[in-house]
């Protein structure tokens, strides 16, 4: 039979020598190896105190964006919901009333915007589909919860804090992504 790689090794089947059949040298060798591991550096990351650094392309929890004046970008066009392969996004649009121009950027906005985080596969297709730059995936991942209902994130949970009124919250949600 043709070998798949050139790394194959012939298995030795010759009978053990007396020294080998005592097993003790083998055991001592093994114990030396395990002993050397006592002093090795532990690769463990102590989770709640230390956190692993994410790569710049990490796709975490969704954030609904605001523009420079703190107005919501989303126009409830539904492209993200269409793009979503897991069908995790639902929304309802509403028309902007006069006097709400400081809240919503365009004439239409999302009155209801929900993402089911148990369905979401964090593929980032919603981010790609969005024409208004209104949704993007942040660096944080979904925190645990005791019931399923807690994983359906409402618009209030997703919306980024206003840069002008709550700059700290904004910076935290924004993370190091640009």
């Amino acid at each position, binding site marked *: 039979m043709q070998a798949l790689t050139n790394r194959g090794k012939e298995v030795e089947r010759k009978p053990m020598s007396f020294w080998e059949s005592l097993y003790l040298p083998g055991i001592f060798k093994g114990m030396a190896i*395990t002993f050397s591991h*006592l002093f*090795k550096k532990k690769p463990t990351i*102590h989770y709640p105190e230390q956190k692993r650094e994410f790569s710049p392309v990490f796709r975490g929890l969704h954030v609904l964006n605001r523009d420079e004046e703190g107005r919501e970008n989303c126009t409830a066009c539904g492209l993200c919901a269409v793009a979503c392969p897991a069908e995790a996004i639902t929304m309802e649009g509403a028309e902007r009333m006069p006097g709400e121009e400081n809240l919503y950027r365009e004439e239409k906005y999302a009155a209801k915007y929900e993402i089911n985080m148990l369905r979401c596969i964090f593929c980032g297709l919603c981010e790609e589909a969005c024409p208004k730059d209104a949704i993007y995936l942040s660096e944080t991942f979904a925190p645990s919860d005791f019931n399923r209902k807690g994983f359906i994130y409402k618009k209030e949970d997703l919306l980024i804090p206003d840069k002008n009124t709550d700059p700290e919250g904004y910076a935290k949600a924004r993370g190091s992504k640009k």
Partner: protein
Amino acid sequence: MTLLAFDWILLIEKFVLIAIIVSVSLVIAMYETYAERKVAAFLQDRPGPNRAGPFGMLQPLADGLKLFMKEEIIPNTSNKFLFILGPCLAMLTAMMTCAVIPWGSHLELFGRHIDLQIADINIGILYVFGVVSMGVYGIMIGGWASNNKFSLIAALRGASQVISYELAMGLSLIALLMLTGSLSLRTIVDQQMAPGHLWNIVYQPLGFLIFLVCAFAECNRTPFDLPEAENELNFGYHQEYSSMKLGFYLFAEYINMFISSVIMATLFFGGYDIPFLDESTLNPNVAALLGGAALFLKVVFFIFLFMWVRWTVPRFRYDQLMDLGWKKLIPLALANMVVTGAVILWLKK
């Protein structure tokens, strides 16, 4: 009136000694469980338990609490009396052996001469062997009373292993006893402490090796932990046990490990002897405390050895286990005995 002539202070003294030694063995067994987890973790490049208290020092308490809080299940079809007796017996026999072990030379307090040993009986080793072999009853009764075929088979497996290795262990000791000429553990230690006399390991290296291997088998430790092979043999004789009764079985194993470490240190490594130091020049109280510390260090090393081997050597197959016991260790121990006897005869002539 003879009753009143009894030395009541001796009674109190022994009672205090028993209380101290038993509680110290329990605490050591407790921290062995912690050490086991830490050593296992370190050998596998993990940090181990580190959440309960500083460095996870309170982990044994948390484990004990967890075991106490578990639901206690006694199978309907089991024999209830024997089912409860099993773990009690395992624990009892594990604790009883510490009675004859000399933990240090002696203290001189309030004008009294206090031996750091509960009972210096002249058949110390025989007593240890007798009590240790009683430990098989804990395994057998537990497995049998569960009325579960897996438990019963595992109990038989465990019992036959313990009995087989006791033979080789006893034979390896006979050679040592021919050298010492005494069964009293204190006399054996005193002989090793005597100037010009080396530790028994120098005279009996093969005997020690056989004793060590047998001690691993007696304590049901890897590579001989077939009675309780969790992963491939479906646990073992304590399969039906839950809550603290299971805890007793597991705990008895750790006490056994501690006791066999002490016995090995006492018989082969000079007990409470401090190498290159003449204890008789020191204050007896200081010497006793230093000696106790020396014994403790030796014991810690052996306990570490037990764990080190556990996380290095894989488990034997049952036929390999029996093969090693009957066909290798017993003939080797016999040969060791004959050679030792011949050398003693030759040197004496």
